[in-house]
């Protein structure tokens, strides 16, 4: 598939737009000088990703992404940011002074991964907008073949929940506890 062919497909233009926005917002996530902004840029990234998922005929996952992340995780983040009373305005102190090595490392990673992927999957074509993977199929395999991880992952969440609460909650000193008892 030559560049010409590639350009000639409109879907690719869509992709290009979405991809750019995703990358850009991702970039902002790691560079934004404002905590809240960073969080919001993550929303953008994820949203873009969701779109890509749709393009890749993974509707269910796309919606899961939107619901779980944009619905829950980001809120969680914002709460976190608020609770830790992090300055919501600009804050120069968010990044370490030394950015060179991290940059080098990440660029190297990118080059390496991209190169490897292209090496491996250079010519493969994604059949555009093929009919979406039916949610039924996913449900079947989740509760069928993958029932064990499905059950186990629930414990991951439960553990995270319980542990999170325990760790995060403010310890009561004995006195308060007495009161608590009384009530």
């Amino acid at each position, binding site marked *: 598939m030559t560049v010409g062919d590639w350009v000639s497909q409109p879907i690719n233009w869509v992709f290009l737009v979405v991809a750019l926005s995703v990358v850009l917002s991702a970039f902002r996530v790691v560079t934004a000088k404002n905590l809240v902004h960073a969080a919001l840029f993550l929303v953008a990234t994820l949203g873009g990703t969701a779109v890509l998922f749709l393009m890749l005929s993974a509707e269910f996952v796309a919606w899961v992404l939107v619901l779980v992340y944009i619905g829950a995780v980001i809120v969680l983040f914002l709460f976190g940011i608020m609770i830790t009373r992090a300055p919501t305005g600009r804050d120069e102190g968010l990044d*370490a002074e030394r950015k060179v090595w991290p940059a080098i*490392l990440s660029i190297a*990673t990118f080059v390496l991964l991209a190169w490897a992927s292209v090496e491996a999957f250079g010519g493969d074509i994604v059949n555009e907008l093929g009919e979406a993977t039916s949610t039924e199929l996913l449900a079947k395999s989740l509760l069928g073949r993958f029932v064990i991880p499905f059950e186990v992952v629930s414990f991951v969440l439960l553990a995270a929940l319980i542990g999170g609460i325990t760790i995060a909650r403010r310890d009561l000193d004995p006195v308060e506890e007495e009161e608590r008892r009384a009530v």
Partner: protein
Amino acid sequence: MTRWLLATEEAEHAVEAGITGGFWVETAGVMLVLPLVAFLLILAFGKKLKNQGAELAIGALAVNCLWATVLFVLNMTDGVLATTTFEIGRIGSDLVFELGWVVDGLSIMMYFLVSVVGLLVFIYAVGYMRDDVRVAWFFAAFSLFAGSMLVLVGAPNLIQLIIGWEGVGLASYLLIGFYWEDMDNVRAGNKAFMVNKVADVGLILGAIILGLAVGTFDFFAINAAAFDHLESLSTVAVVGGALLFFGAMGKSAQFPFHIWLPDAMAGPTPVSALMHAATMVTAGVYLMGRMFPLFEYLASDIRPWLVAIGAITLFALGLLALVANDIKKVLAYSTVSQLGYMMTAVAAGGYTAGLFHLFTHAFFKALLFLGAGSVIHAVHSNYMSDMGGLRKQMPTTYWTFVAGALSLAGILPLAGFWSKDEILATLGHEGYIAVMWIAVAGAFVTAFYMTRAVALTFHGEYKGHGHPHESPRIMTGPLVALAIPSIGFGLLNIPGVALPGLGNFTEWLAVRVVPMGDHHAESIDFLLAGSGLLAALAGIALGWRIWGKDRETQVERDRFEIPVLYPLLRRKYYVDDLALGMVGATMGPVARLVNWVNDYVIDGLVNGAALITKALGSFVYGIVDQRGVDGIVHGLSAGADLSGAAVRKWQTGRVQQYAASFVGGALILIVVFVFVT
């Protein structure tokens, strides 16, 4: 001639049958054991006994005397030849270690010598050591001394010889350092031990080489092998012989190993007497005699060298006696030079000659030492400058001493004359003419210094303190007893003359498994004998001329000087460059060079060597071991420590640096594996 053939047959038969000669021979081993038993007993109970264990020591040797005499007689009548051995260990089927005892002409002679002289010295010692310190210990060590010597001379093989050999060395070490409170004596002891130890290296290596070449350490076997020129032996005979001689040089104080002997005077006089007469120093000569066939049949090439060493010893070291003031030192040097005679003789091929001189010398030298001892006992000083005119106070001592001196000087018809004459004859016959004349000169020197000793000690006026008087019977007795053989034993071996029905010393000594094949004169060579005698008389005359006549105090007379010679002599240890030194008087630089060499090289032999070794030791330990070898170890550990510190440095505690090296590590891995491999 016929005799030793007969002996040989007997020998073969004897060796097969294991034993011949009946009770006395079968039990001859008693002689080896008794003194050692005495040694242990005295160690254990000595202090409790009345005479501090002297009785045990004397008793043991008395019994030995009995055995030795009987065997001696048996050997005179018809040669006794037997060996008794028992195994103390074997490796595989071939290498066998045995102990036991030999009974043949040579060993019998030595048994006799050691026992008789030993006994007399012991008796004498009872008197001499009375109210001295550690008497019990003295007699214990003394018995050990005699015992080891007997083990040595009774040895049927090199192993036992070595055992006795070192035993003698040990005993001498103990006795020389007898007064160990004084460090000088200790050092003297160490010196003796170390010098001997160095020489022993030769003995041990020689023993190994010969033993392995023949397949056994047995003397008979080795000598027999030498006799029929066993190929594997002949290839190493020269090396082995040389090494053995090296060992012998140590014990018999041949140049340059003589250095320990004068110091050995540090011990009590009886010790010196025994050491110089029967035990210790004679061991070397004995060994040469024991191994005579080796030198006779295989190793004859090295003989000239051995003779040369003997010659140097006999003449150059004899001269030293001239300048010694300590009477014991005079006798010591005379011993060295007499040992020189013996070695020269044996080395030159005079088996009988050498050993006969050993035999006679034992008696008169013991006599002389004991006499000196009795004088020292009287005047409480070793120095002749503290003596003089003692012949009135101590007649017995005087006369016996004179007898010994004359015998030593080699005056007809005393024992010394005959044995020395035999040596001269041998040298002449074997063609060492030059050496022979040196020996004659030696005779002159001997007579000269003995005269001096006698004169300074017994003539003139008394120069010491207190009122010396004759020693007690127990001391004079042995003197008399020793005087007799010193005078008479020459008759045992007058060339060509055989005692009726008994043959003569030569034949007794020839009772060996292997024919000695040495020459000994059948008739007296009057020219030679005469020249020897003349030299001796001249020596006496000159000596008497200088010291003898009884005018003013002898002290000034002792200032007698021979220009070039004496200054050199006074520098005792440097004798060995005497000859060069004489030249040196005329051509200084050479002399000085040589002197320097001697100063730092010859003398360095012992003292220097010790220092050098010590220095080396501290170097090896201080630098190499502690710094080097150990240093490496420490270095390594330090290195590990440092890198450990480095690892810790890396652990900065900053999580993002961790993460960075995390990712970095991953990337590096990938890059390596994707692009490199």
